[in-house]
């Protein structure tokens, strides 16, 4: 049976709060943690498949043009080489998140330096790699491919454009105005586990072990790429060593492994090198942004402008949604928002953790800091003053809104000084010390999800869904959800994820996993409870289950009486998404020190206060926030992709030269969870968490740098050279 819900109405009953087990929301450690730290949890390249051949991708060394010929014979003559494959079905870009169809194919057409054009299969990885490096390829290059986003005529993303009232006029007559140009550089997901896949055919069916975030979509993308029906494809992704957007869509090695395995009649493994992961999966686009804020004497916004230029390859639908939260975060009736995309021939731009807000929010929050200084209003108070009653562009109510509480509680916990603010008030030896803050916002999404929950005769439960756990804690929150609903301890729930033979989950992306799959599991459990209630002779709403038994009554095993009960939960987002604006909100506070001589910036401490609905697991939720704040530090200070100006290739393509923060960069970080129940976000009142922690944090650091030393840095990341260039004498 399937328990289905398409949520069209708010759910204010908060049914979960009446459950008795008391395990949901608790800081339960990851249930798969032991397997991971002891090395027994297999990642994509580690599944024990026999008779494996090894595939290595060959990548293009021109920007744009055509592969005219490949000297396959020479490669085939090399030791161990089994095949040189340039099948027209090989994919040349990773699919965008939820694309649900094949990405660009045809490896003969080259659109960026580093694009896969073939895969070489050999007995050993080393042989395949050597042959790949040696492969002689003749190209016909089409000169003049544009590479610089500011040198081309951009395309306007019309659905993002807002033009309300008259912003220019509002700016001209405002008591205070801020007009800034801010730039951010490209980011990489930099997940630890490289992209990898093992493909094995059995007759006309293929099983692919891969590292992917959204199997429900990936299976369609892979089947479409191969030109086979979906029922001939099985994808397995039980453990994913980080995704951060880079594994949302099916990537090149997955399709290559399947094609190669079919060609050589043997299972084939394709693992991308670290350089390939950087150069041919996904980049976050660089951005150029203009922020315009016009306010009255008290800092109340009358005008709000946010424009952004981003880039991508031709034929890509994705445009870094920089303005996503700018549409509703602050008021101001004269509004001008515009997003433009420059078509250039760098690698594909796509989702990297918190697409949009990760770079849009820090820029907006720097502009707010400038306005706070001009108006003399405390930065925390300025934000509170500008919280709109409803979405200022669409007149939609908010599903729930904890920005003010986060700002206030965060300020208090951090020890924010609301007194007059001036740069260079505190010096500690060579270091200027200062504080800054920013709001956090990240739109909330949910996706369709199915999960099957089975109560076994012994009173334990099993959950099956192709939902993934990309290191976020999905295994654990699913077990907690079942435990809470069915009165079981976490140890009595077996969670099986990451296999398309199971009911289709939502996948992990856009922070929607917890709320979406949690809702499907919740629905399945409600249906099971109905049946149990009948057996117990009571109403479902009165059925109190705890520690494997009806409270004061029979154990589950007795109630089941040798039978198994199984239900599938099916959750679908409904109309409610169109009648409300749903977002997570929060606030960041940072204290930094800036070296007066070298411009080096180090974060002393940071605090994030976040409201994201029901907390499903206090520990994994906090970990998500810590991770987000760590990414904020990276975006603020260290992370930048550098592209060669002549061929557009990504030059800093490894973890030594693409600088994610190290332990020493991440000091004392405090997380305050301002818990709430969001009746619109999902039937379990939970919202997305994973990305919120980096939506604005870099702005808090920028503002703290200004407060510390007077350098108003408008280019992220704020590396020592940029801080020095902006530092007053």
């Amino acid at each position, binding site marked *: 049976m399937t328990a289905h819900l398409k949520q069209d109405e708010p759910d204010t009953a908060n049914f979960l709060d009446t459950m008795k087990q008391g395990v949901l929301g608790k800081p339960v450690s990851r249930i798969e943690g032991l397997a991971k730290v002891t090395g027994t949890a297999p990642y994509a390249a580690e599944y024990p498949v026999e008779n494996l051949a090894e595939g290595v991708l060959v990548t293009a*060394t021109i920007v744009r043009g055509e592969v005219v010929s490949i000297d396959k014979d020479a490669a085939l003559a090399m*030791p161990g080489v089994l095949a040189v494959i340039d099948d027209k079905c090989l994919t040349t870009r990773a699919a965008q998140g939820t694309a649900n169809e094949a990405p660009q194919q045809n490896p003969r057409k080259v659109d960026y330096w580093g694009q896969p054009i073939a895969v070489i299969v050999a007995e050993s990885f*080393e042989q395949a*790699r*050597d042959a790949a*490096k040696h492969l002689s390829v003749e190209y016909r290059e089409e000169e003049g491919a544009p590479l610089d986003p500011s040198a081309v005529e951009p395309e306007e993303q019309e659905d993002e454009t807002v033009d309300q009232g008259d912003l220019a006029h509002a700016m001209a007559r405002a008591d205070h105005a801020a007009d800034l140009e801010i730039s951010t550089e490209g980011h990489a997901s930099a997940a630890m586990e490289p992209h990898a896949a093992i493909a094995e055919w059995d007759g006309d069916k293929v099983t692919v072990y891969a590292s992917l975030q959204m199997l429900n979509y990936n299976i369609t993308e892979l089947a479409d790429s191969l030109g086979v029906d979906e029922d001939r494809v099985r994808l397995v992704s039980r453990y994913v060593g980080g995704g951060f957007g880079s594994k949302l869509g099916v990537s090149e090695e997955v399709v290559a492994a399947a094609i190669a395995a079919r060609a050589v009649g043997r299972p084939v493994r394709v693992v991308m*090198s670290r*350089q390939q992961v950087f150069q041919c999966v996904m980049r976050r686009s660089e951005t150029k942004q203009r922020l315009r804020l016009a306010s009255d004497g008290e800092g109340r916004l009358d005008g709000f402008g946010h424009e952004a230029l981003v880039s991508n390859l031709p034929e890509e639908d994705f445009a870094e949604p920089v303005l996503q939260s700018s549409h509703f975060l602050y008021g101001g009736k004269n509004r001008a928002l515009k997003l433009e995309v420059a078509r250039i021939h760098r690698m594909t731009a796509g989702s990297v953790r918190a697409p949009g807000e990760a770079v849009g929010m820090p820029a907006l929050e720097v502009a707010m800091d400038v306005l706070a200084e001009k108006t003399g209003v405390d930065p925390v108070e300025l934000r509170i003053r500008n919280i709109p009653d409803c979405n200022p562009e669409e007149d939609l109510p908010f599903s729930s809104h904890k920005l003010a509480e986060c700002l206030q509680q965060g300020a208090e916990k951090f020890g924010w000084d609301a007194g007059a603010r001036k740069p260079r008030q505190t010096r500690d030896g*060579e270091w200027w010390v200062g504080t800054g803050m920013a709001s956090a916002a990240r739109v909330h999404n949910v996706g369709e999800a199915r999960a099957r929950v089975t109560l076994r005769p012994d009173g334990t439960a099993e959950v099956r869904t192709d939902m993934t756990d990309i290191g976020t804690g999905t295994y654990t929150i699913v077990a907690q959800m079942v435990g809470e609903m069915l009165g079981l301890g976490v140890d009595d729930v077996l969670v099986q994820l990451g296999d398309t033979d199971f009911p289709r989950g939502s996948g992990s992306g856009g922070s929607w996993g917890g709320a979406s799959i949690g809702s499907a599991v919740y629905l399945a459990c409600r249906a099971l409870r109905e049946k149990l209630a009948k057996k117990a002779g009571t109403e479902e709403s009165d059925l109190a289950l705890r520690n494997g038994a009806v409270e004061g009554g029979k154990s589950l095993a007795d109630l089941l009486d040798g039978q198994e009960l199984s239900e599938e939960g099916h959750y679908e987002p409904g109309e409610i998404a169109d009648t409300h604006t749903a977002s997570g909100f929060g606030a960041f506070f940072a204290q930094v020190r800036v*070296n007066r*001589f*070298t*411009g*080096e*910036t*180090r974060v002393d401490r940071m605090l994030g206060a976040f409201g994201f609905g029901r907390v499903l697991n206090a520990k994994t939720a906090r970990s998500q926030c810590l991770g987000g704040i760590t990414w904020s530090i990276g975006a603020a*200070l*260290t992370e930048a992709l*550098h*592209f*060669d*100006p*002549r061929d557009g*290739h990504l*030059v*800093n393509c490894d973890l*030594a*030269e693409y*600088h994610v*923060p*190290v*332990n*020493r*960069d991440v000091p004392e970080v405090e997380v305050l969870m301002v818990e709430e129940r969001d009746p619109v976000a999902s039937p379990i009142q939970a919202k997305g968490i994973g990305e919120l922690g980096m939506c604005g944090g870099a702005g808090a650091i920028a503002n703290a740098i200004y407060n510390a030393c007077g350098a108003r840095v408008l280019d992220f*990341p704020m*590396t*020592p*050279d940029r801080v*020095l*260039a902006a530092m007053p004498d």
Partner: protein
Amino acid sequence: MRPFDLQRPDSLEHARNLSTGETATLIAGGTNLLDLMKLQVEVPERVVAIDRLGMNEIQATEDGGLRIGALVTNTATANDARIRSDYPVLARAILAGATQQLRNRATTGGNLCQRTRCYYFTNIDQPCNKREPGSGCGAIEGIARLHGVLGTSSSCIATYPGDMAVAMSALDATVEIVSADGSERSVPVRDFHLLPGDTPWRDNVLETGEIITAVTLPALVEGKQLYRKVRERSSYAFALVSVAAIIAMEGDTIARADLAFGGLAHKPWYDPRLSDLLVGKAPDAALFDSAADLLLENAQGYGENDFKIPLARRTLAAVLAEATETEL
């Protein structure tokens, strides 16, 4: 990775015999060589592992210095009590480099010979005169953020990326080398690395078949020893600019000033004129400025790395101020 033969001699003599010929490459900790072999930047036909040759002790020398064997790991050097108390600039420089895991493998000899981190050098599908003589320099008109501003040439602007050798240069240490025929020679660290000139493929003075056996530190020196490494990430990043300094005061004037710089050139940069300028003078902002003027007299930026010139000036001032306790 290309197939290669691995040889593992157990005496220095045997190693010397094996390492003659263009096609042989020594491997110590392997933390640099193996990465480059995977990328096919290095394609040796024979790899000679020197891990059984001893050379892994730190010993006192007759004239009161220390002799650090070529195979002593960076961790062991940085943790050595004598190094920490008498040559803190060296311990600090090593600890400012790489990560604990890398330092556990990295050796004295390997660290001296580590190759540049130039993005074009490590990508065999890009031009690079160092890797492939005559193919051009990808960095000069490309992304040159890591690159040099001193002693560059029109064929190469790469930097020597290491930290350890910068401190050794300030300390005026000596590299001990044995050649294939068994003859020995000593080269001051200050002369060990070469400028790129029109032979950028030569990183240092080692000839084919030569093996570094040790680095010798001179007797204990007076003064404050500092190592300052500037980078946007606080660990596990190569220097944008680094300064190793040994500064002694006599009363109100500077009595000793040995300075070496990392991140600026194809070698640890040592300019003897700085010491001449600083010694005998009272430290103040104007003096530090003139030292920077001298240091950077011929500095040339390549766009992306222009910032290194003012950054070197400011870092030098910070180090001199700290060492001489001057308030700036």
